[in-house]
């Protein structure tokens, strides 16, 4: 994903994302509220950029997404998921450089980070892999850097 993809930050998407986390604060939904005006318009919850998944062309964790003939979801570990059955999201880290506002169009670029192995508690290898994602706005300003760590297990995770 060296060239990246476009992620338009839509006000309805921000409201729905915030609502799904039980968050009804006005800065995430109401442009006319004084609190929203005080922060320069609608801003987004700390983990909102995760919803760029909807715009990621090869996003692997939505198998029911309609696709063009011949295209298929990638099986890569991108997006923090790490596969459907055995993969788990181990860590997620964000750095916030510049506010994101409803109406922005972000360009999202992703690159692989480190990879490492660890022995699981009940045997079986744990394979960790990092993905670094950068979100830049329409002015080219870096808004958020995300670092996701996925883990693949050789067998079902201990319960």
């Amino acid at each position, binding site marked *: 994903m060296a060239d990246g993809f476009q992620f338009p930050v839509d006000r309805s998407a921000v409201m729905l*994302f915030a609502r799904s*986390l039980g*968050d009804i604060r006005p*800065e995430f939904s109401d442009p006319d509220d004084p609190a929203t005006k005080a922060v320069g318009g609608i801003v987004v*919850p*700390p983990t909102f950029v995760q919803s760029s*998944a909807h715009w990621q062309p090869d996003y692997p964790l939505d198998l029911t997404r309609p696709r063009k003939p011949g295209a298929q979801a990638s099986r890569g570990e991108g997006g923090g998921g790490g596969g459907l059955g055995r993969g788990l999201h181990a860590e997620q880290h964000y750095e916030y450089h510049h506010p994101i506002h409803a109406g922005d169009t972000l360009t999202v670029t992703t690159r692989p980070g480190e990879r490492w192995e660890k022995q699981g508690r009940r045997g079986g290898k744990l394979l960790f892999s990092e993905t670094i994602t950068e979100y830049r706005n329409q002015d080219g300003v870096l808004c958020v850097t995300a670092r996701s760590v996925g883990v693949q297990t050789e067998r079902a995770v201990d319960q």
Partner: protein
Amino acid sequence: MDLKVGDTHEAVVIDNVTRTHVVKYAGAGGDFNPLHHDDEFAKERGGYPSVFAHGMFSMGLTGRMLTDWLGPTALKKYGVRFTRQVWPGDTLTARGEVTEVKDEGGEKLATIKVVTVNQNGESVVEGEAVAAI
């Protein structure tokens, strides 16, 4: 905001996680891995007792504790490890504690240790945030 080392904030961020909560988060966030909404898939393909919530659902709920406490634009950094799965029926309490306050580049920054626990007191998310205060 006047924060000092040792200050804490705690909130019940969700009381009784339902499959509907998880599905709503899937729709908003875009992660439709069937492990999070399809019990048969979770049991047969994943070897889990049932569906469980996305890690990012726990991180998002924990983020709500932070923005309710510190405001929606205060965060400079926020990172977590997912330490335990969140199952339907769980109730989550998120807690932040200020561990350091310093001046950096003309800004006052607070480092906050973050832990979210389930109804048994087991952590589901552990991490750290840095906020401009």
